[in-house]
């Protein structure tokens, strides 16, 4: 019985989440986007995640180069470190690491902010003033995700490549100029965009999940904590699972 009820609740809240997504999309399609608020949110979300994103990116670039050195030296192909680092970052690690960090920082922040507003009746108050809270409070945050995350990913990829460069050049002894040309030549249009398409999907997913959890928070400050945690957990699972599916689809579509 309890299982059936839990299952029913899950379907119910998924239904509500889909309706909520429809409301958000409706506002965006009708052009009800408050760009000044979007700009504020892009800045806020970007700043929240920037430092950790860059740190994670630099470290992963460096580690990729270290492992790359070991692997490539086995095949006597040390000069391919640059490609390994650049392609791994651009196709896979940049988007996914950044999306995970962004979920935990900016996504959590957004869920907590909206959650606090919900339990303090600021969302209800918006309605009493004749303003649609989805348009005023939610859409700017979701649209901001779609802008902030891609920007962060590009920065992460650049910094990650720098991390790889430091190891590749100073540890593995690849000549600097050679490292750069190898990096630039290795990244094709498809490599970049196959990663980048995923980023927009992740951004939408994180925005949707965190806004939904925050917006429908009840139960006081405990509720805010609970909904924020759920939001981040859903984002992690969603990003990781959808990444696998998207990667498969992209590989099928482009063939490489």
């Amino acid at each position, binding site marked *: 019985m309890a299982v059936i009820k839990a299952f029913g609740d899950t379907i119910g809240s998924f239904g509500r989440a889909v309706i909520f997504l429809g409301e958000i999309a409706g506002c965006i399609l009708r052009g009800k986007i408050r760009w000044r608020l979007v700009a504020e949110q892009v800045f806020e979300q970007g700043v929240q995640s920037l430092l950790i994103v860059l740190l994670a990116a630099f470290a992963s670039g460096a580690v990729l180069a270290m492992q790359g050195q070991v692997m490539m030296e086995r095949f006597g192909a040390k000069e391919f470190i640059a490609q390994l680092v650049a392609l791994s970052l651009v196709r896979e690690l940049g988007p996914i690491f950044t999306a995970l960090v962004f979920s935990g920082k900016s996504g959590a922040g957004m869920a907590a902010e909206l959650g*606090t*507003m919900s339990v*303090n*009746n*600021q969302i*209800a*108050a918006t*309605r*009493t*003033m*004749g*303003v*649609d809270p989805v348009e005023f409070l939610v859409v700017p945050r979701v649209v901001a995700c779609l802008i902030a995350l891609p920007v962060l990913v590009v920065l992460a990829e650049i910094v990650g490549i720098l991390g790889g460069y430091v190891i590749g050049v100073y540890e593995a002894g690849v000549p600097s100029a050679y490292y750069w040309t190898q990096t630039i030549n290795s990244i094709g249009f498809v490599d970049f965009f196959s990663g980048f398409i995923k980023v927009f999907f992740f951004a939408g997913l994180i925005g949707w999940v965190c806004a939904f959890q925050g917006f429908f928070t009840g139960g006081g400050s405990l509720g805010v904590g609970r909904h924020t945690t759920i939001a981040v957990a859903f984002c992690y699972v969603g990003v990781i699972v959808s990444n696998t599916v998207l990667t498969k689809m992209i590989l099928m579509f482009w063939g490489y």
Partner: protein
Amino acid sequence: MIRVEELHKSFNGQSVLDGVSFSIERGEVVTFLGLSGTGKSVLLLHLIGLLSPDRGRIVIDGTDITRLSERELLAFRRQVGYLFQESALYDFMTVEDNLAFPLEEHTDLSDAQRRDKVREYLAMVDMEGAGGRYPSELSGGMRKRVALARALILGAKVLLCDEPTSGLDPVRSRDISVVIRDLSRRTGTTTVITSHDVANSFRISDRVFVLDKGRVVAQGTEDDIRGSQVELVRELVG
């Protein structure tokens, strides 16, 4: 001005409003008294269309608001001010910006006109000096005043106040009550208050309604209520 007929509402099979009916004249100040959990907040939320009833009609200024769509409700709510129990000011805006917000949304006032209006309404609630502060820097009573000014700034025809005195000391409770009445009188607003503060309710209301178990069990002036034979009413006012 406000006519409510046979309002029913239950949550998860639990009846909260069980046939509430009353009517309120234009410009009247009325208070709903009742114990905690009798559905006072639920009733008030119905009057602004944030909850919709299972059954019954709510006619405000000639419109049955239970039949309005969400979009029509947004427009309707511009004429109604709502004072939340917790004030519900935007905590990411200053006091001034909180007051300016409804004006920015619904009027074409210039920046200067808007600033004047904000200053005028802050003065009405004795909060002139606080415009640049954030709600978190104010006391509960001050927040209530600011929220009251925000609720009225669009020239509300109807003002709904959910427990304006809860959480305030006796002096502040009387102050905010008197401010509500004075502003209602001055702006000709029809005002509905919920409370369990008997003394202040009688002090400022033209009529008082007592809610119990989802129904109105007594109504009228202070004398009517004090003369009531209903058990709960006697306990409440006695």
